[in-house]
């Protein structure tokens, strides 16, 4: 297409959106509503994910060491543990430090220290796994090493937590896909309806001798504009809602971790604009092609 053609095509979507106000408003509202729901749900899923990550990252493996082993044996054990696949960090905790940590966990350390004559705790290592799924296998391997008294990582409950977290994640992603799919259908249907309402106009364009690209492109650009407009407005609404919710619950639910607005803003904005743009373009293209190729 020549530059003159482009010059005629580019202003068309703006004129058309202005003149078909009713259709424009209906289509933009649909885009806003569906993408708003998608955006809110995406935030929900990413927050659940974030909390799952935090909880999983907090899982530690405690390796208690037998008493009476010498420094060389200790170093050897440390090297063996370090060489296991998936061990991210290892930290030596002496019996005294262990008692300190335990007593501070249970409140007034003075009282507890006074209640016991001797320190019952052995020396230990605190391990962190590179990824939460490796915790159990690391623990099993460590347990078999010599001079290891016991390994504790919350056996039983940790596995249940991981299963629960995975379940929540899968559910979240599943619902996300479902919602995304309904958004695609709803938005493209709506845009197709607005094209459908103008099928006579398309016929007339054909009779006058307009080429397919001369007919199709203004509609595609119009769809993209609708999608972009709806996506942009939905994004603003999502960010405003999220900000309001964060302000409201950040103090009262301080045991949970929330994804900050700054972290998510760019991804969310670009994602929603892109989805709006694509849905608008594809919806229009499909609808208008149907009438062009008659």
């Amino acid at each position: 297409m020549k530059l003159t053609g482009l010059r005629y095509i580019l202003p068309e979507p703006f004129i058309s959106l202005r003149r078909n106000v009713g259709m424009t408003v209906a289509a933009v509202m649909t885009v806003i509503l569906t993408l708003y729901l998608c955006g809110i749900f995406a935030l929900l899923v990413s927050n659940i994910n974030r909390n799952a990550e935090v909880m999983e990252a907090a899982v530690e493996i405690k390796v208690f060491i037998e008493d009476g082993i010498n420094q060389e044996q200790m170093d050897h054990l440390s090297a063996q543990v370090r060489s296991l696949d998936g061990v991210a960090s290892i930290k030596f905790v002496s019996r005294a430090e262990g008692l300190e940590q335990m007593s501070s966990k249970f409140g007034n350390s003075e009282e507890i220290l006074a209640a016991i004559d001797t320190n019952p705790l052995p020396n230990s290592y605190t391990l962190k796994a590179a990824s939460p799924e490796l915790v159990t296998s690391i623990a099993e391997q460590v347990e078999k090493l010599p001079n290891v008294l016991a390994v504790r990582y919350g056996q039983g409950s940790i596995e249940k937590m991981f299963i629960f977290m995975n379940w929540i994640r899968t559910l979240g992603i599943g619902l996300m896909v479902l919602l995304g799919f309904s958004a695609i259908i709803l938005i493209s249907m709506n845009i197709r309806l607005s094209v459908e309402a103008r099928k006579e106009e398309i016929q007339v364009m054909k009779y006058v001798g307009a080429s397919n690209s001369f007919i199709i492109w203004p509609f595609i650009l119009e769809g993209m504009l609708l999608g972009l407009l709806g996506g942009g407005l939905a994004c603003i609404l999502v960010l405003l809602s999220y900000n309001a919710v964060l302000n409201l619950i950040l103090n009262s639910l301080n045991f949970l971790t929330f994804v900050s607005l700054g972290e998510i803003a760019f991804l969310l904005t670009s994602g929603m604009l892109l989805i709006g743009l694509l849905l608008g373009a594809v919806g229009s293209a499909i609808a208008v092609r149907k009438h062009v190729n008659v």
Partner: protein
Amino acid sequence: MIDMANVFKTYDRGNLALKDITLHVDNGEFVYLTGQSGAGKSTLIKLLFREVLPDSGQIFIAGRSIIRLNNRETVKLRRNTGVVFQDFRLMENKTVFENVAFALKVLEYPWNEVKESVPKVLERLKIADKATAFPRQLSGGEQQRVAFARAVINNPPIILADEPTGNLDPDTSDELMGLFQEFNNEGATVIMATHDKRIVNDTHKRVIALRKGEIIGDHIGGWLL
């Protein structure tokens, strides 16, 4: 210029619209197609700008078959054919100026030429004062003038009209017929489907009469409907 040879057209459910149509129209001729509703006039017009395709037979325009054309060639055919419909078929969301200008824009005329040509044709058709109006703000006669302006703005060699006066009062019809005559005098071939007795019975032009899809008469001069 226009040749049809043994053309048959049947619509869905077996409705025979045209049966063995063979005709020739010379360059610059003015031809009326007449007949009752359902006689096949509109189908014949539609075949000439490829809104529908025949089941069999051949159609030639300027020596070239129009049966097997690709998209690009169809577009070219339509750009050389001005079509006027009974129901005007204007783009409702475009102003009079934009409706007429559209025919030039699709041909990618430079904007300067569009800006000059459209007011000229609107002036000639006496609707220059309606340039910024939308079709719904115009009378039937005015809308048909806009449709006519759109059809002739790029001086197509062929003008097809399907009952162009069907929705107009007698005076407005006469004015419109005058416009067709003007463009025919300037060299355009005009083929007009009509069952307007007032027009056809008094004419001294060629009249092709159709009945149930067949040509039953092809005469110079009026044909009593």
